[in-house]
């Protein structure tokens, strides 16, 4: 945490190495969060890049005492939520399309390279409701507490815990059916 404050301080004063350190420190976590929320590697890459770009553009308004990881994670989750809401107005993707999106990850031109396990999780995650997906992703991948997630989602802690509980049960069932295939 202290390191983040120093990095933000240095970056604000023009140190690009500090920006690189922030980028390298959180890049993979953000990509993983974006992928488990979207199951779409293209969208995930775009979102993470956008979040970093937005971060550098708004650096002057970012207070160094905040939690940088949480800020970035929440930015990713919110952007995805907005995108998915937009997409939901159009025909939904079929399983076949979802699979295709992830097999794109084998493409050597891709930025993110996923393990098989991550691909399984991402695919299963698309089958649970968005709120549950966001809660699980932010809790397990973003290391955010239920209270913090409740604040981000503007919901009560009980609601968030409910999202988590139901989401995890569904996810467990989905993953077990997948791994025993």
């Amino acid at each position, binding site marked *: 945490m202290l390191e983040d404050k120093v990095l933000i301080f240095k970056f604000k004063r023009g140190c690009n190495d500090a920006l690189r350190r922030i980028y390298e420190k959180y890049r993979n976590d953000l*990509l993983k969060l974006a992928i488990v929320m979207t199951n779409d590697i293209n969208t995930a890459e775009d979102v993470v*890049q956008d979040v*970093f770009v937005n971060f550098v553009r708004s650096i002057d308004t970012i207070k160094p005492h905040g939690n940088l990881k949480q800020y970035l994670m929440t930015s990713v989750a919110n952007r995805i939520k907005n995108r998915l809401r937009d997409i939901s107005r159009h025909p939904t993707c079929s399983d076949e399309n979802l699979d295709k999106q992830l097999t794109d990850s084998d493409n*050597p031109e891709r930025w993110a*390279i996923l393990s098989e396990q991550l691909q399984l*999780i991402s695919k299963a995650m698309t089958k649970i409701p968005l709120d549950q997906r966001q809660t699980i992703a932010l809790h397990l*991948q973003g290391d955010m*507490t239920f209270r913090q997630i409740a604040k981000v989602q503007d919901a009560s802690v009980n609601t968030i815990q409910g999202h*988590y509980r139901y989401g995890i049960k569904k996810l467990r069932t989905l993953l077990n059916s997948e791994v025993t295939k």
Partner: protein
Amino acid sequence: MKQVDDIKKYFKEARITTNESKDNDVFNKILDAANKNKTSANKLSTWRIIMKTKITNIAAAAVIFIAVMLILQNGSVNIETPAFGLDDIATAIQNAEWIHCTMTLEELSGNTDDSPMGIGEGWESWQSVQPSLSIEKHSNGTIYFTEEDIAKTSIYDPESNIINVKYKQLSDSQETYASISDMFTAQFTDIKNRFDKVKYEEGVFEGQPVTIISIDYTSEGGLHSIISIVVDPETYLPKKTCIQQAFLKKNLTAKMTGIYDYPKSGPVDIYELGAPQDAKVVVIDSIDMRDNPELIEALTPYNKARENLVSDYILITTYQYGSSVHTITVTYNQGRRQRSEYHPVWGSVNSEDDKIGYKEALGDSFDSMLKWSQDYENSKGKNLSIHIYDGEYYYRAEKDPLDEWTINEKQQWPDHNPIGLNDLSDWGWPNILPKNNVTKIENDYSRENNLIAFERILEPDIRRDGKLACAAQKDIHYLDPSRDYMCVRKEQFHRMIRGGIEIKDVEFDLNEIPDELSSVRFVSEFGQTDNGQWYPKKIEKHSKRWDADGKEKPLSLSLIHTLYLKTNPEFPEGIFDPNNLPKEDD
């Protein structure tokens, strides 16, 4: 394949890597965005330099004038010595109670796309030391009114009809000046060495003979300035400045003139300058939070009582809404070490049978409660969080309803215990900071009950998304000297906000504090330990709420806390040891 039971572990183990070459591509795009951002900021700062340079500030202009005089007197520039000396100018400026200046942009050329003002536009400024004020009124209607002593700037924006009030944190070492002359002299050293060329000549201004000082210098950043100061040779006061600046790197030049006069008085507030009385006032920064020495003294007995609280104890607190206990906290405290457990009951008690069962198990004594909490810790499917402070490090472990533990990284807190919730001090002796937003007061309640009262004002809290989280708030803490200075009552006054509303839609004054209580928390039953230490045994909270239509309802009982305290207990072995916290795999 193996069944996936531990989702968390499965999640954590799922790996992602990145393609190094793409990594660099993406980073370079981010870097480009950062550099463009800086360029954009530079454009603005260029304009700030040109249009708002210190030299255009009347005070600084006079500093330059004095600096020039010093240079001349010191003989560092080989030109004719002026007919008047520094002392004359310093005296003249000192006698000026206010300095008023009208700055106008007269010429503009080059890359002018981002110019914040056009030809003929500018601002008026006023400056005084007693009172210490810096004021600007711009031709677009924006007004800046800065009270330097309290570092408060009010900015009126005519477009939104809002006055934003900003406070800059004052440091105790911040310089204050007794006079304008002192201020100029103090600033002199800083700019003395900036000048390349100084020219002195006689001239005429408004039909009167004047002395004209011209300064020519180029800053390290490539800003070339030629400044002329017209001085009245009789009064020794600057009458006019002409500033021509060229930002060489940006192909941008501008010329501004300033006309000076020295009135006996100036504007007293932002409204006198034209801000409408109905403009909405929004406080957007914290007020001065420096320590207040008088309050430190006034709070000494309270803080001593707080420090001398019994230090070895187990405290169990119930949170009761209506007839049901919602949560139970257990705090083990030994000197600086503390363990706090948070047992939510709500959600695990669903049926009437459950309620009867848990009430029986819970009982109504310290021992039955403690046993219940220990059983709870081992029960399945329930939330639980445990906080430990070992005197230097803070640890937190949380269990979710799926019985999966999250262990948070330890944090170093060498100075104080960061848990600070649900312990004896939190309930009876909360921290009252001796800051400038706290004052000692007397009111009917404090007089009738022989209590000492401290009032704290909190400014409106505006969320990052522009929504209002809380309007201005007033808290009053009542301390009882006859009960170890315990805080026996806390009143809150603030306008209730439901769900956060857009700040631009707020129709009421954010700073207005209602006369009616919004909530009150008071000790309704007291306890005393064997060694005479008072403590709150029962605390009631009464709050305003909303009805289904969103209307405020009057105060009603909302929460009861019952405290069960055991002092100097025998602590369970290893209770403060973070190594005994559950592990993520448990």
